[in-house]
């Protein structure tokens, strides 16, 4: 059974459709990236999973049950929705103590998680003096209090410096390695591409794709860059063969869509046209992500 199951989830706020018929699952032992532009419905989906908002239709289940029906929610799910969700006048330790007390956990557990996120030296300082990275660590510590089977973190990499990112990556991979299901959302793929095993990509509240990182790349339709001293001649041949060709402003090179590198190379060889360069355009996973989610066009 999947640790998290979202089934045809729809959430409407008045006229706004925040989540639209969304379905996906999250498995244990993996870090799953929940990706989409700002306003694409990631936070609303997480809130529905945590019982904070009610689905308009569909279901959001934790270990097969709605959140409200979990017998021990704290040990099932640890969530960090926003690093700013803390009273600035409280110390980090006091903040965690209020949550631990509500969960029936001892203060010793508070000190353990503070140690895990390396905040012990700052534990008695008021949170208003914490950096963004420290607040993210505190939010993660709160999520870890109940030693939960599922971790749900909304934009945990937001505001982290490179060291902080590396630290987060290491701890999340370790936590998933212990058998937990880890779901982390982000609107910037590069923040999490080295951390996640699989991805759920959404745009405008709808599922765009779910799969492994490799599958995200597989659907790639990057154009080929071709450089040849007889580019104009090759262009005609390629267009006759059904490819679409765009000039890049230089006389000896062009961008070719709808033809594989093998097809282009073979066509050129058949006609004795020399090729100086034949390669895929350099695009990143990020480009692919933007292509899938509509490059910010879904922001509401």
């Amino acid at each position, binding site marked *: 059974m999947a640790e998290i199951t979202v089934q045809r989830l729809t959430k409407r706020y008045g006229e706004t459709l925040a989540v639209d018929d969304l379905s996906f699952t999250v498995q244990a032992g993996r870090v799953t990236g929940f990706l989409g532009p700002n306003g694409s419905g990631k936070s609303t989906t997480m*809130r529905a999973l*945590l*019982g*904070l*908002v*009610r689905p308009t239709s569909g279901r959001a289940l934790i270990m097969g049950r709605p*959140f*409200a029906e*979990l017998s021990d*929610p*704290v040990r099932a*799910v640890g*969530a960090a*929705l*926003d690093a*700013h*969700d*803390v*009273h*600035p*006048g*409280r*110390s980090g330790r*006091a*903040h965690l*103590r*209020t*949550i631990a*007390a*509500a*969960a*029936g956990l001892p203060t010793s557990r508070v000190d353990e998680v503070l140690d895990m996120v390396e905040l012990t030296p700052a534990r008695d300082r008021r949170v208003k003096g914490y950096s963004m990275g420290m607040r993210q660590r505190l939010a993660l510590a*709160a999520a870890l209090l109940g030693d939960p089977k599922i971790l749900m973190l909304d934009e945990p990499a937001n505001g982290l410096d490179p060291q902080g990112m590396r630290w987060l990556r290491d701890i999340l991979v370790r936590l998933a390695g212990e058998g937990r299901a880890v779901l982390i959302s982000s609107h910037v793929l590069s923040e999490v591409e080295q951390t996640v095993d699989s991805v759920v990509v959404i745009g405008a509240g709808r599922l765009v794709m779910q799969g492994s990182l490799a599958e995200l790349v597989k659907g790639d339709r990057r154009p080929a860059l071709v450089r040849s001293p007889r580019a104009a001649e090759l262009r005609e041949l390629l267009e006759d063969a059904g490819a679409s060709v765009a000039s890049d402003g230089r006389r000896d090179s062009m961008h070719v869509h709808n033809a594989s590198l093998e097809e282009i190379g073979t066509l050129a060889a058949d006609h004795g046209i020399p090729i100086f360069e034949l390669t895929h355009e350099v695009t990143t996973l990020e480009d692919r992500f933007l292509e899938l989610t509509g490059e910010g066009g879904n922001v509401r």
Partner: protein
Amino acid sequence: MNALKSEWLKLVSVRTTWGLLGAMVLIEGLAAGLVTGLGDIEDLRRGNVATFIIGTHLATVFMFTLGALLSTNEFRHGTANSTYVVTPKRERVVLAKLAVGLAVGVVGALLYIAVNAGLGLSILSSRGVVVDADTAVNGYVGVGVGLVLGCLFGVALGSLLRNQVLTIIVGLVLFLLAGTVALFIGSDVGRYFPGEALLALQNTPSVDLLSQTDGGLVLAAYCVVLGIAGMIFTRQREIT
């Protein structure tokens, strides 16, 4: 019990709590000292309990604010998310906040009485003014209960409105303005407003007000109704 412990920790772990209680004690001490120390001796002799039990309305506003913060801080600072994820049975949280509001209300009332009685009565006594014991006890009970109910009123209203600024403004209007305006325009309804019910509970002499007991009952009824409404609303509404 867990929710209760958590709410208590939330209350005592922020400086605002101590600031509000401290400010109340300071202002109350100053007011009681000045009035009993510098007031006209004949006025004080003639005066009823309202002459020396003073500053009560302001003290009640302080306690109301403390109660309102208990509820609205959750939404002001976003801690409602973790609070209701950890305790999905949300009415328990509101109940715990009311219980903590009751407790801190009692603490505030005892502090008020200690300062007012300690300072005010000893100064009066040194000036040779004899205060009738029954009148004093009656006055202090009314004021003490008013402070406790004021705090509960803040918790309950805050759980209903959620917005911190709105809760405090609505509370101030209800306590300080609305009833007075209603009484001024000659309506009988004015005496049932929270502020006027509080004045009655505090034994303020006025023909327009309810009796002390009725004032207390009306104010308590407000707290119960708002508290239940707050619990129902908190249960039903989404945490966004």
